[in-house]
């Protein structure tokens, strides 16, 4: 009888081990200031997971199952609770997320590092993340704002603007980007008339705009969020006739802004991570087929973030959290066969055969030792009610 029980137990264990699929957390702000962007970000990440599952090649035919959590983008407490749930209750192998820089840092410090869980953020862009003491657990597929600040400075200078007022959302993302932009713009001979923070979630930004207008600048750079304070600042600027020429950063690039503001936004310049490489185009076609808006901000980055997790697990040959961490940089960078978007099946097979791969993905991923992407930026201009790509930086 004892033996029978032991055999039965062994059998069920073996069966459950064979059946156990890999769960991956998708931790982005389904509510909060970028909630109009996040459904698409999550869908892009889940597209990569589905591709791996459908290939049948992932760890001998296992599935990759996304588990969603709400980072809220701004509420560190809520984000940590959601991450805690993913890690301890859902037992995810790794987390695709979080999205905004502040909550990403909070979740990394308080949940990911203590539990040894890898996080790959598609959109946390604060320069502070580069030097964060994350024990090598936090990666990101979006480039740091240290770089976006330089690109923005070039864009602003390229438009012949010598003096500009800056307003940023009062958090890690806004402050980091405003600082890096100010340094870069001063380095190319520009002048920051005033850099002032704004709080999200106010009904009225007339006072903030009054201060910015009093600085004497004619152009306003808005480093905020498309569904919150950033939109309010632009509306109040137009209402008071204070500014009608805007420079926007990645958090402001969204169709909902054009819908809310309308024609007055025409001519505004913006930057957001992205490229026009063959891989980017290939991803957009694949995304379109799956009903995902590949051109929207951070969709490509999210796809790559999820793909890296899946490929690292395959390279490690296990769903162990530490094993995944050890392989992320290896699959992301050379040497190895280049794997583009939509080629996860090929990548998984090569890894299963013990060969090396260099995942390129939708954003031509190259990760630095600190886990940062050294990606490219798109410069947009609002034309005929759309964010039209001007060039790639």
């Amino acid at each position, binding site marked *: 009888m004892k033996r029978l029980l032991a055999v039965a137990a062994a059998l069920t264990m073996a069966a459950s081990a064979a059946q156990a699929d890999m769960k991956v957390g998708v931790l982005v702000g389904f509510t909060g200031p970028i909630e109009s962007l996040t459904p698409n970000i999550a869908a892009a990440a889940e597209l990569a997971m589905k591709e791996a599952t459908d290939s049948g090649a992932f760890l001998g035919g296992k599935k990759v199952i996304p588990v969603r959590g709400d980072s809220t983008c701004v509420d560190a407490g809520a984000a940590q609770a959601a991450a805690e749930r993913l890690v301890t209750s859902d037992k995810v192998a790794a987390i695709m997320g979080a999205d905004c820089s502040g909550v990403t840092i909070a979740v990394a410090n308080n949940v990911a590092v203590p539990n040894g869980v890898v996080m790959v953020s598609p959109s946390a862009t604060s320069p502070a993340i580069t030097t964060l003491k994350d024990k090598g657990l936090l990666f990101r597929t979006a480039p740091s704002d240290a770089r976006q600040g330089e690109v923005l400075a070039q864009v602003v200078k390229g438009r012949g603007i010598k003096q500009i007022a800056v307003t940023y959302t009062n958090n890690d993302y806004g402050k980091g980007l405003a600082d890096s932009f100010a340094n870069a713009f001063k380095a190319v001979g520009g002048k920051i008339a005033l850099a002032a923070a704004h709080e999200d979630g106010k009904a009225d930004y*007339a006072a903030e705009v*009054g*201060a910015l207008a*009093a600085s004497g600048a004619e152009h306003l750079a808005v480093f905020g969020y498309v569904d*919150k304070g950033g939109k309010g600042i632009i*509306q109040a600027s137009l209402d*008071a*006739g204070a500014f009608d020429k805007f420079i926007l950063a990645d958090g402001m690039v969204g169709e909902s802004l054009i819908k809310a503001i309308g024609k007055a936004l025409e001519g505004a310049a913006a930057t957001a991570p992205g490229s026009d490489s063959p891989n980017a185009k290939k991803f957009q076609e694949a995304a379109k087929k799956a009903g995902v808006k590949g051109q929207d901000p951070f969709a490509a980055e999210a796809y790559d973030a999820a793909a890296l997790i899946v490929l690292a697990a395959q390279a490690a040959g296990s769903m162990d959290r530490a094993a995944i961490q050890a392989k992320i940089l290896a699959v992301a960078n050379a040497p190895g066969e280049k794997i583009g978007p939509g080629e996860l099946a090929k990548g998984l097979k090569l890894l299963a055969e013990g060969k090396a791969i260099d995942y390129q993905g939708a954003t031509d991923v190259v990760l630095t030792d600190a886990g940062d992407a050294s990606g490219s930026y798109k410069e947009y201009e609002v034309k005929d009610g759309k964010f039209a790509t001007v060039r790639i930086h």
Partner: protein
Amino acid sequence: MDIDIVNAAVLLANFVVVPAIAYGSQLALGALGITLVYGILRFANFSHGDLMAFGTMAAILGTWQLQAWGIGLGLLPTALLALPVGIAAAVAAALAADRTVFRFYRVRRSAPMVLSIASVGVMFVLNGVVRVIVGPDDRSFSDGARYLINAREFKSVTGLSEGLSVRTSQVLTLALAVAAVAALFWFLQRTRAGKAMRAYSDNEDLALLSGVEPDRVVLLTWAIAASLAAIAGTLYGLDKSFQPFTYLQLLLPMFAAAIVGGIGQPMGAIAGGFLVAFSEIALTYPYKKFLRYVLPEDMQPDGLVQLLSTDYKLSVSFAILVVVLLWRPTGLFRGRVL
């Protein structure tokens, strides 16, 4: 030099005077409701801000329905047509709150503090209901012509380097506020019911002895306070934007306005509303550009000349409250002592 003075005046009008008049009218309407409830029902009603949100929400839903039917007012916002819906909803909510919560304590003659704390509970419930019905996000419901005077057109017509912008919602706010206040004063001074309300406020027992029906006074008070709340809330939402929780943030400036003016004094609530609005905006406005126009060149400032950062806007209300309570607790118009 002369043109500089005009420019300076236009600048100040655009960034301080016009916004403060609109904001002051909204605060005054809200403070009137608070002061009425305090004067007659004798407690500080903390649910007033969310009563505003509730009325505004109903007005927004009405506006959307009208827009869906293709009914509009042309240049004026459709919300004006939906305002009666908002008022009706706010009155219904206030009466329901009175029936279920406030009456219980009133009948027992509970201390005013107990009623005030109960109103905090009502506030949370109303806020939750609003968020469940319309969601926590920013809702836009303004339509019609946005500007009466557009800053850019103003510049090209007058040739000045400063623009003046006057929005339809700002003028509408002032007009509706004047009309509402005039109607309220007429009602309180001239009608039998209004006189009964004042008598009840003055001395409850004497009023009861002279045959004033208390239930009717309570009903009227809630109806008037809720109507004012719905009007103020809808105007605020039209002028700025509607988010359920911003009305909670209005509570402090509204109470400051009611107390500065002298709580229980309708005239004081109006004066207080404008005082708070002008202080908030004038103290946080940077005068750099203004001084550039009026001062000779060698005296022009380099800094922003801003007394308080805009982040501290709310603290202006706090400061006014503290100062008034310390030095003149009865307020400008000799109201009651809280």
